[in-house]
């Protein structure tokens, strides 16, 4: 299994990922699945600065995700897949990339969003995506860093 962790994070690559999760799951690759970044080479080049010789950073669009994961598998790397929203995570699953657990790290606050944890705020469509993921057997957990306890998101309806 080339994917050590699948994570939803509004900020994609940042300290919690690079200093927290990368060493914790012993990953050596970050796969950023995001359609907006594909069109923005400047932002990609800044994000690549967060990598190092033992951490390769790869970008792909949602449509390319399956091929990107196969390539990571071929290189025998352990990767963390990052996407910005639960909807994107559901799309990754729909494109044939199988994963059993989803980590939700940060979803920024916005008008009409409901607080799940101090740094995760759900919009109505996030509930739908999470529900859809759970119906397909994905365990969803809200957890910022490996150092703090996770909060599992209950099956079926929404309870915590």
């Amino acid at each position, binding site marked *: 299994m080339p994917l050590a962790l699948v994570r939803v994070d509004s900020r994609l690559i*940042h*300290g*919690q990922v690079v*200093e*927290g999760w990368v*060493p914790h799951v012993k990953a050596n690759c970050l796969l950023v699945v995001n359609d907006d970044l594909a069109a923005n080479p400047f932002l990609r080049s800044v994000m690549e600065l967060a990598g190092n010789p033992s951490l390769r950073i790869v970008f792909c669009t949602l449509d390319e995700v399956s091929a990107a994961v196969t390539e990571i598998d071929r290189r025998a790397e352990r990767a963390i897949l990052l996407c910005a929203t639960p909807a994107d995570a559901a799309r990754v699953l729909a494109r044939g990339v199988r994963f059993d657990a989803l980590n939700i790290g*940060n979803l920024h606050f916005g008008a009409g969003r409901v607080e799940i*944890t*101090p740094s995760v705020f759900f919009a109505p469509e996030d509930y739908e995506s999470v529900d859809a993921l759970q119906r397909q057997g994905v365990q969803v957990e809200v957890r910022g*860093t490996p150092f703090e306890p996770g909060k599992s998101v209950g099956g079926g309806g929404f309870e915590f």
Partner: protein
Amino acid sequence: MALRFLMAGLLGGICYLDRTAAFQVMLHRPLIAGSIAGALFGNFAAGAVAGAVIELLYIARLPVGASIPPDDTGAAIFAGAGAATAVPAGAPIDYAVVTALLLLSVLCAEAGKVADRFVRRINCRIAQVTIAAVDRGDIAAVDHGLLAGVTLFGAVGVALAVGFSGLGVLAGRWLPGMFTTGERTGFAQLFPLLPLLGAASVLSCSRSERSAVFFYIAMAIAFGVSLAWNWGLR
């Protein structure tokens, strides 16, 4: 005594402000907070020993995003004030009492973390009010909102500093009667484990094989040299 607590609140409050709200020039580090608390309650050196041990215990817990590390500033204020109260200035350090204080300081570190979360929650409200005021065209609200946040961080910092140094003084008075004191009895036997935990914390900041090799080589050389040096003297 009242003056000492006033100073503890003032200087501790500055250390706490440095932790998150202002500057981050490392005035909040346990070595400094512990030494200050020690000096205020009569034994600078004892406070520094307590601070130097706590300094490294939580070093691998990074303040990243919404993840808040344990409050090692508060732990150091508690242990520094306690050590200074228990050990008279100039007397040899009573490691049994200092060890007990260092272990108890965990409770302060966790309590301080809860207080920190509370401040950051209240600040949500301040930020909302600020945004609403700017919407109405009140530009000064930005300065006021920031000032309110800094004031809240500072006020909670002062309260924690006074509270933890007070608890430290109580513990420093009470503990010496509770334990077998001395260099190598009772709790003092656990003392070396604490700096060892700190050393492991530093090592765990790095994942490279190279760091681990360097760590153990340096440990062996430093130990060998100090051993040889000491035998040479005898």
